[in-house]
């Protein structure tokens, strides 16, 4: 502050230093002021423009790979100024991607990037970075006190105060030591009969306890989230799990022959991305095609997939295909972003996709529009089914003889014969036992009136099913033993069932107008093999998702649209096909007892770890039991989870479905939770140990990824960016723990597992994978890495460009991976018959329905004889969430239509679904400021309303009329409650402390695009935690930000996961479904992670909505945009005229009414 007074003398001294001369001078110079005459023509001094040229300048640039779980995998440029990554941009060099034969992609693939990737600078430098390893205080005390436990084996409650406890900074070495010690102690504690006894005392089901086989390592769970996103970095978690066999060997004193590794959680199925009906029809994981394929089709049906918001870098393939004449039909439960790009758009009831597909099939069947040739050559529809047993009629029973030898690209593995490594397999490989179990099938030659043997080889051009094959009607077939049995072709059974789904009925069930159903069905059938069905995550996140797949495939098969470049079915959710690198066992399953330390040599492989569906952890470790019946197959049974360590995913904890039940009721039973993260996520909030790892821009070791929706192998380049904080690479963290285990156990092999990491030769692990992979063998890791550093990916060496699953089946007459070698629409395994799903039926959603949940909608049908509640000793009226899952009740539509959801009378009247959106990806929530500000209607960097948890917040979209009926205005805050019996968590009624952060409070938006009865909340945003709620109370700015961790929530309380839960469906958990193994061409059956296991159905929820606070700033009055008359339902007179184009009618020459909306 200057002094008030300055004496004249002082001033003159100061002034004379410059002298008045200077002052005069300045004035005089000022007289030369520019008067700009016409700034359109001339501007005097433009040197100032350099300020912007300087802002544009960069010192250097480097590339890195942005690969959240969104299937796009963008190699991008990072631009550096003064050592800071100031901005990010596309490399524009995907158009230079080539393969070993010189095939080359075009620059139409460029640019590949998106707003979330560009905003990564906000993450690299944001205050939510994990800056160094952190350990929860209570957990550290537990470790340092020597793992004290109660009589039941549980750690002291007071040391388990997760998400509220203090955090302590530790070194990487210390963190690794702590984790190693805990792994050993937990494994020791739960080993042997004593260990299993403790688990029994803790209340686990007997099957679950037995599943550990007495090996303590079996209660240690590891998960590399979406491992295709990091073959060594992320998949390393499973390599670590495999090495736990060393620990078991030490603890139990057993040899490699008996040692068991840890357990590894699933990914694709855990994320409810797996379409479980795909393996039921095709025998392998999923059918999909590269998104660029849509240029090739005549009609594109986008079905429950918000393509333009979830496949952003590939959206242009759709808009450009449309521009060039492809008809785009969008089916969604709202007028979506993608609807606005469609020629035809239909708004359907959520969860009714199976019914709609059946309705379309109904038209095709009734009007005989189906592709009969395709049906005979490629499907099981001509095969006979016995009406007595409901099993396929066996050729042996009718024609006798042994199963025919197989020769069509198929080889039967003799008992004990070992299959070659997956990457070396060409023929389909059938274990002899399975081959004998199936035998051959029978079709009926109507002309000859004779049964014909159908051999698995006979598909496509090799098919002997002739034009006279019986498709409709029944036959009495005489068996070898002289008895006769009534049989019907699958076609006949399916047609009879589909007849129930006539257009009028389907309109009532699905809301899709009968006329639209007929129009679409006829158009698809009129041009067989030219329709691509792009099916999204929407319908897949319902309990009836396997029905959905089987019914859509039925429609597609009837119209010749499976396995063709221009006619196929694709399921697009998540990124998953790790088999694109089927040499990966070289790395994850390298035998820890027999390690290959020479980087030049291939590894010897033996799998000691066991896969497990995380849905049981999510389900409080219960398998599904209804009444007296166990409905989880033996091969699926989980073990208790006592330690959980995961990387590259917030989805297994922070964003877990039924999150609040998981953190309140499951976490207390888990003794250690470790997270590898570079950004403080909800999972970190609830963890015990957080390993600080490198961001994608700081990776010091290369890694590899690829995608199911594009043809590229994308390498994570090692980057020159210095680490900003005390972080390590994910794989270095694993190596560190390996060394700590070696130290603690004295077994050096724990450390040798990661020898090449210590030697900084991770490339060698990757080269081993490449060499052993069908679609990558021939590539040199160093070449791929060098290209990636220039921003250029390589082309996957799949059979075709673009990729299309099923191409080989059609083009090479190669059998599908099913028992019959054909697309199978009938499932004769006991579990399916018992569930009433031997036919491709429609079940009502299990929660998201206005009617009685989960009923099978069907007419009385000879082939539908499910076991009902009575068979399980359950009262037929019992509809609680657990029983509901195993409830096989058949109703006709007329009956179902008159039924009610059990909670309807209590005001639970809204379907609540949580789809993904443009502003967030699965592993990259809507969180950084710039991205969040643009998320929907409530973004505001300056947070004029202090109630806002962040610069944007979660909101629910509700039909305006529904809003008015509830007394909820546009922009108000509302409470959203789901089934009070278990959500947000069991026991909330007696637990106010946890309920405070669990109950969903969010903004409501009047959204005219959603029909009445259907509400939506976008996925995904960080939910409230004890810390975020405390922050909102204590911080001056009111941010819902944990003062202790900087965790930033997008909700004041609860989250989109407050209303969801996990669900278990019997048909997801069979021991008998035949399917291809994960890697290679061998067939097997039953549980297979990411192929045949539970998917959870997290989009199912029926909710009650009540107003909480007014939307105006600080809770005063209306939310401003509504108050200004600019919102749907609040339009001012001017806004009304604006909307109709009458505010500035464009003149007289358009007055002609015929020109109106021509």
């Amino acid at each position, binding site marked *: 502050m200057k002094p008030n007074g300055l004496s004249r003398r002082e001033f003159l001294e100061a002034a004379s230093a410059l002298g008045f001369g200077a002052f005069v001078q300045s004035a005089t110079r000022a007289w030369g002021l520019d008067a700009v005459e016409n700034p359109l023509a001339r501007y005097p001094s433009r040197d100032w423009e350099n300020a*912007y040229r300087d802002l544009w300048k960069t010192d250097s640039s480097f590339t890195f790979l942005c690969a959240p779980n969104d299937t796009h995998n963008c190699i991008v440029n990072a631009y550096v100024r003064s050592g800071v990554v100031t901005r990010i941009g596309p490399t524009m060099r995907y*158009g230079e991607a080539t393969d070993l034969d010189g095939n080359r992609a075009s620059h139409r693939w460029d640019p590949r990037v998106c707003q979330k990737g560009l905003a990564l600078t906000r993450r690299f430098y944001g205050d939510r970075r994990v800056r160094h390893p952190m350990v929860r205080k209570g957990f550290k005390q537990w470790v340092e006190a020597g793992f004290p436990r109660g009589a039941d084996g549980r750690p002291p409650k007071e040391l388990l105060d997760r998400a509220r406890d203090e955090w302590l900074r530790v070194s990487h070495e210390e963190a690794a030591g702590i984790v190693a010690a805990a792994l050993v102690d937990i494994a020791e504690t739960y080993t042997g009969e004593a260990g299993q006894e403790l688990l029994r005392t803790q209340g686990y089901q007997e099957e679950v306890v037995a599943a550990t086989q007495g090996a303590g390592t079996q209660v240690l769970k590891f998960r590399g989230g979406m491992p295709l996103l990091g073959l060594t970095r992320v998949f390393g978690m499973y390599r670590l799990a495999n090495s736990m066999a060393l620990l078991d060997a030490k603890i139990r004193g057993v040899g490699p022959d008996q040692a068991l590794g840890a357990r590894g959680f699933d990914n694709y199925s855990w994320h409810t991305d797996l379409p479980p009906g795909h393996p039921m029809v095709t025998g392998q994981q999923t059918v999909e095609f590269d998104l660029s394929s849509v240029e090739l089709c005549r009609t594109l049906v986008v079905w429950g997939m918000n393509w333009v918001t979830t496949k952003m870098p590939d959206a*242009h393939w759709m808009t450009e295909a449309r521009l060039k004449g492809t008809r785009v039909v969008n089916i969604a439960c709202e007028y979506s972003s993608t609807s606005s790009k469609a020629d035809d758009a239909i708004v359907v009831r959520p969860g009714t996709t199976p019914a709609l597909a059946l309705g379309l099939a109904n038209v095709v069947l009734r009007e005989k529009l189906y592709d009969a040739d395709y049906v005979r050559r490629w499907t099981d529809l001509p095969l006979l089914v016995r009406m007595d047993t409901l099993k396929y009629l066996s050729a042996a029973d009718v024609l006798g003889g042994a199963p025919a030898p197989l020769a069509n690209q198929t080889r039967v593995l003799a008992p004990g014969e070992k299959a070659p490594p997956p990457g070396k397999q060409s023929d389909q490989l059938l274990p002899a036992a399975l081959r004998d179990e199936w035998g051959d099938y029978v079709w009926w030659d109507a002309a000859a009136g004779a049964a014909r043997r159908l051999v698995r080889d006979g598909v496509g051009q090799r098919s002997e099913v002739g034009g006279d094959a019986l498709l409709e009607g029944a036959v009495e077939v005489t068996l070898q033993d002289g008895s006769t049995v009534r049989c019907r072709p699958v076609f006949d059974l399916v047609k009879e069932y589909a007849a129930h789904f006539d257009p009028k009925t389907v309109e009532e069930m699905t809301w899709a107008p009968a006329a639209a159903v007929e129009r679409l069905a006829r158009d698809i059938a009129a041009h067989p093999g030219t329709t691509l069905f792009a099916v999204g995550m929407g319908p897949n996140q319902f309990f009836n998702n396997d029905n959905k797949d089987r019914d859509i495939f039925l429609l597609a098969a009837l119209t010749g649209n499976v396995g063709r470049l221009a006619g196929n079915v694709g399921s697009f959710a998540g990124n998953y096909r790790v088999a694109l690198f089927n040499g990966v066992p070289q790395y994850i399953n390298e035998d820890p007892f027999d390690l290959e330390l020479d980087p030049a040599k291939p590894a010897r492989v033996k799998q000691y770890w066991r896969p497990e569906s995380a849905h049981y952890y999510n389900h409080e470790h219960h398998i599904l039991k209804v009444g007296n019946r166990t409905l989880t197959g033996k091969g699926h049974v989980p073990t208790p989870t006592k330690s959980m360590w995961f990387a590259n995913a917030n989805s297994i904890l922070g964003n877990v479905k039924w999150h609040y039940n998981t953190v309140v009721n499951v976490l207390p039973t888990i003794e250690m939770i470790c997270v590898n993260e570079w950004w403080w996520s909800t999972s970190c909030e609830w963890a015990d140990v957080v390993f600080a790892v490198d961001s994608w821009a700081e990776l010091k070791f290369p890694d590899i990824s690829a995608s199911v929706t594009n043809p590229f192998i994308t390498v994570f380049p090692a980057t020159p960016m210095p680490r900003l904080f005390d972080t390590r690479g994910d794989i270095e963290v694993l190596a560190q723990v390996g060394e700590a285990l070696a130290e603690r156990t004295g077994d050096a092999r724990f450390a040798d597992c990661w020898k090449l990491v210590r030697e900084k030769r991770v490339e060698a692990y990757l080269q081993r994978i490449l060499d052993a992979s069908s679609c990558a063998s021939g590539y040199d890791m160093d070449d791929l890495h060098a290209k990636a550093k220039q921003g250029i990916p390589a082309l996957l060496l799949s059979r075709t460009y673009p990729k299309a699953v099923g191409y080989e089946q059609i083009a090479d007459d190669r059998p599908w991976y099913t028992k019959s070698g054909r697309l199978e629409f009938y499932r004769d395994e006991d579990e399916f018959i018992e569930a009433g799903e031997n036919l491709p039926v429609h079940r009502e959603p299990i929660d998201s329905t206005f009617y009685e949940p989960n009923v099978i909608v069907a007419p009385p049908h000879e082939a539908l004889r499910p076991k009902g509640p009575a068979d399980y000793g359950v009262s037929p009226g019992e509809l609680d969430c657990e029983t509901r899952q195993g409830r096989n009740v058949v109703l006709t539509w007329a009956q179902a239509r008159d039924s009610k959801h059990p909670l309807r009378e209590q005001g639970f009247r809204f379907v609540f679904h949580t789809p993904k959106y443009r502003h967030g990806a699965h592993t990259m929530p809507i969180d950084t400021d710039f991205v969040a500000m643009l998320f929907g209607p409530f973004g505001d960097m300056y947070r004029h309303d202090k109630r806002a948890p962040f610069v944007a917040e979660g909101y629910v979209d509700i039909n305006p009329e529904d809003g008015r009926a509830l007394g909820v205005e546009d922009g108000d805050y509302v409470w959203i409650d789901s089934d009070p019996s278990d959500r947000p968590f069991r026991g909330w009624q007696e637990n106010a402390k946890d309920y405070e952060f669990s109950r969903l409070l969010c903004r409501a938006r009047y959204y005219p695009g959603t029909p009445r009865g259907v509400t939506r909340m976008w996925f995904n945003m960080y939910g409230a935690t004890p810390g975020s709620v405390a922050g909102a109370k204590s911080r001056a700015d009111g941010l819902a930000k944990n003062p202790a961790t900087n965790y930033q929530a997008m909700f004041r309380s609860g989250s989109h996961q407050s209303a969801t839960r996990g669900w278990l469906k019997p048909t997801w958990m069979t021991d008998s479904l035949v399917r291809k193994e994960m890697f*290679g061409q061998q067939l097997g059956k039953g549980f297979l992670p990411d192929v045949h296991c539970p998917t959870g159905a997290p989009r199912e929820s029926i909710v009650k909505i009540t107003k909480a606070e007014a939307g105006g700033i600080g809770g005063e009055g209306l939310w401003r945009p509504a108050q200004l008359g600019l919102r749907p339902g609040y339009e001012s007179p001017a806004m009304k005229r604006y*909307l109709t184009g009458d505010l*500035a009618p464009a003149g007289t020459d358009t007055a002609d009414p015929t020109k109106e909306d021509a």
Partner: protein
Amino acid sequence: MARVHNWQIGRDMSYWYPESRPQKQFAAVFDTNKCISCQTCTIACKTTWTSGKGQEYMLWNNVETKPYGFYPMAWDLKLLERLGPQSWRDGAYQGRTLFEAAEAGERVLGWRPEEIDYAYPNVGEDDCAGGDVEQGADFRIPHDKWFFYLARICNHCTYPACLASCPRASIYKRPEDGIVLIDQGRCRGYQECVKACPYKKVFYNPMTGTSEKCIACFPKLEQGIQPQCFVNCIGKIRFAGHVSTPAEAREDNPLDYLVHVKKVALPLYPQWGLEPNVYYVPPIHVPRRFLRQMFGPQVDAAIETYRGAADDLDLAGLLCLFGSTERVVPRWKRTGDVVIGMEEDGSEIVRVPITEPIFIRRAFDAARGVTRTNTP
């Protein structure tokens, strides 16, 4: 006031300064049918130019959902309302431009958004007009419930209102490329330009006390590279270049071809009289009355032309060239199924197929002894 010619409204009009066209005029075509509102353009711009203090709210490039989306709040609605009825006859605008409608004491008819009008920059996202969607709604073109995405940057107008309104002439148009800039050394932050720009693409920065706006990434254009919001456009809706006057239009200039030859791309609110230089391919699914209000009477013809692209390889091909190179493509040609972007001198910049090729690999790669499969 001077008299100048505005070809977009088919007549002469008054403007604060005499007509003076740059040697070249920076211009762009945006295909709204391809825009997916991913906001990558917005973030590309923001992380490059407006990451500083006082710029947090500022979006030189934004994408809004029409008709319920506005940034800032009600920007076009307010002005249309103030300007009143506007009519066209035979392609000539009969009403008053913003310069002709200026009130006493003003140079331009404008309005000043309130500070809070800049909040909620993506309000109206995906909100459809035409009433609430019913259960089982079934849409065909044109959709009776509808919205579309409108990506917006500074229009670098031939007759900028910001430039006209600046009392101290701190805003000028670059003679070499027509880019409109605010001299950050000379601006005194009066915010007259903020009030005058009808597209509301000038923003006041409270931390620098000056007004700032889109600079069309001139440091990039000076190197022949398209601006950030173009290169980062993954919807591939944008094409940057130079547009001529109708008289000087050249078929091999991509912008001239789309604007003057095919007339498939139209200016935004041409009736306002600024001769804006971002041209929009109108959305084909939107009711025409609304589109005529926004893009003028040429909309019907433009949509017919666009819907004919399936049978017009030149048009389809050029639209598929969008976003395939970061360089500015001053010339183009099509040979068969390939579209080629060229420098002025005819040298090739990029070539793309109108349909991506199909490669079928041998089932067994004998050279490497491995099976190539789609089901590994």
